[in-house]
């Protein structure tokens, strides 16, 4: 079949050669997976969260398998802004794919400092602002559970960078739409949906929670239906692009998210199960477009037929 398919999509000013990104925390800083995967095939790479100061993370156990999913309470373990610049960025810079740094913080000014500290750096192509991590005491969820605080955070960041700002929202909210709208209004270029759901597992022999912190974040195929429903809902409420994430393991999963209104998708837990997931999905998206005679994958975005 001679059809040339255009897989590229845009998140604000950020152009991706294909819509498949590595999800934050599920692909480290790229280097760990480079022996197994040709990173330059990806649409982009979102780093593990970077906070201002080095963060050791939570006590173990930090992960446990659940039915079709896993819980994690990594606790944003990361080398901090300086450590990132010194140890991680040089490798990332050597790649030809867009690098999006996932930014986390305990206080508003910490987010601002991290973005400021990264903004002049070559090789940082955008930010994913993590206001939705269920595994830290401060920050994280707080910022996304109150629209006013979310507005303030995003507008403060908007002032210090002109690079693409993607804001990652939590599914652990009653109604996600008000926060999504406020974040859009504050100048975000895109939204990532969703972070993990709060979950728990108990060891019936020891009568203790399996994760040292009690609860953790649920990811994997188990949460796909929840993520998809939220993407669909938010896509009808905002104009900015959405990056869908949650249980994407196959190209069909990716297409479901795109049809529901995602411009791009992220692959998280699936990388642990099969590091070849992203290259496979990209290849199969191309095949799907050829079969369905879709010239540009961007024509599929929000293409759900309903009602």
């Amino acid at each position: 079949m001679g059809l040339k398919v255009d897989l590229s999509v845009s998140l604000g000013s950020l152009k991706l050669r294909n819509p498949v990104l590595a999800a934050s925390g599920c692909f480290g800083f790229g280097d760990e997976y480079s022996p197994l995967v040709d990173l330059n095939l990806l649409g982009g790479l979102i780093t593990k969260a970077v906070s201002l100061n080095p963060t050791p993370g939570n006590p173990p156990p930090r992960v446990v398998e659940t039915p079709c999913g896993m819980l994690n309470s990594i606790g944003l373990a990361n080398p901090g802004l300086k450590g990132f610049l010194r140890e991680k960025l040089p490798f990332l810079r050597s790649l030809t794919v867009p690098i999006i740094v996932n930014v986390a913080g305990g206080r508003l000014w910490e987010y601002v400092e991290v973005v400021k500290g990264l903004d002049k750096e070559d090789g940082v192509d955008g930010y994913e602002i993590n206001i939705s991590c269920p595994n830290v005491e401060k920050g994280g969820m707080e910022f996304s559970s109150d629209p006013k605080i979310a507005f303030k955070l995003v507008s403060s960041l908007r002032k210090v960078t002109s690079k693409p700002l993607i804001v990652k929202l939590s599914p652990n909210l009653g109604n996600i739409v008000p926060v999504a709208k406020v974040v859009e209004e504050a100048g975000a270029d895109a939204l990532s949906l969703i972070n993990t759901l709060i979950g728990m597992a108990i060891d019936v022999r020891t009568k203790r929670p399996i994760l040292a912190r009690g609860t953790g974040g649920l990811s994997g195929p188990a949460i796909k239906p929840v993520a998809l429903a939220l993407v669909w809902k938010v896509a009808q409420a905002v104009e900015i692009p959405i990056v869908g994430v949650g249980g994407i393991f196959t190209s069909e999963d990716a297409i479901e998210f795109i049809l529901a209104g995602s411009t791009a998708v992220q692959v998280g837990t699936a990388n642990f199960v099969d590091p070849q997931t992203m290259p496979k999905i990209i290849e199969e998206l191309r095949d799907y477009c050829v079969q369905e005679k879709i010239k540009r994958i961007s024509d599929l975005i929000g293409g759900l037929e309903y009602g």
Partner: protein
Amino acid sequence: MIQTKALVLGTQRLGPLFYRLKLKAPSISSLAQPGQFVHLKVDEGYDPLLRRPFSFHHTDPSQGCFDLLIKLRGKGTRLLSQKSPGEELDLIGPLGNGFPLPHSGQSPVLVAGGAGIAPLFMLAERLTSARGNLFFWGAKRKEEIFLRDEFSSLGWRLEISTEDGSIGYRGLVTDLLQAYLSKAKDNCLIYTCGPWGMLKEVARLSGQNHLPCWVSLEGNMACGVGACWGCAVRCKVEGKLGYRRICKDGPVFSAEEVIWD
């Protein structure tokens, strides 16, 4: 580190709780070092979802093969025990650092608890110059002790303890170790693998006797390649409390590095 398909050559029962899984994957077999492991997908589909880590137990690079020694625990190990010759498993390996080999003059002493025998047996195979040395192995009961012929042909002296005394010394393997160390061997180098409580005691005894000790740790894993920090273990890191990854910085650590409580 390679991701490849391994061919199942067969499974072999070793008592009620253990079996040997024979796999063929030449690229992996030729790279494997004692103490390293593979991370494998038990089955297609989403249940179980995550890969499972298993240590190399024996390798035969000339045939492109290697063995895993697996203790039945939950769903994953049960499904693996039912594999038939000809099936394929997706695996990533070799992973982890492996056991550092002894310096000349050091006399290795191996201490295994339960399934901890898996990697230590391969280490014993490689340490041919240590023939005649001591291998301590503790288990719950007689049925969990096997491989005795293999040990005698390797030339190691196998000392067994069982909790119920059904074979060997009745008690804990660390009692045997303690008794042995009390007759002091200054040049001993201890290698150990087994449950956390046992490792902690071995570490304590080593420390008490000022002996170097390598411990191989287990822990829940997600990625297996160092990316997720899910397998963290509390360690002294540059003098401070910190975390190390079992999959990447380990699974073998110096006993002194690990924070045991």
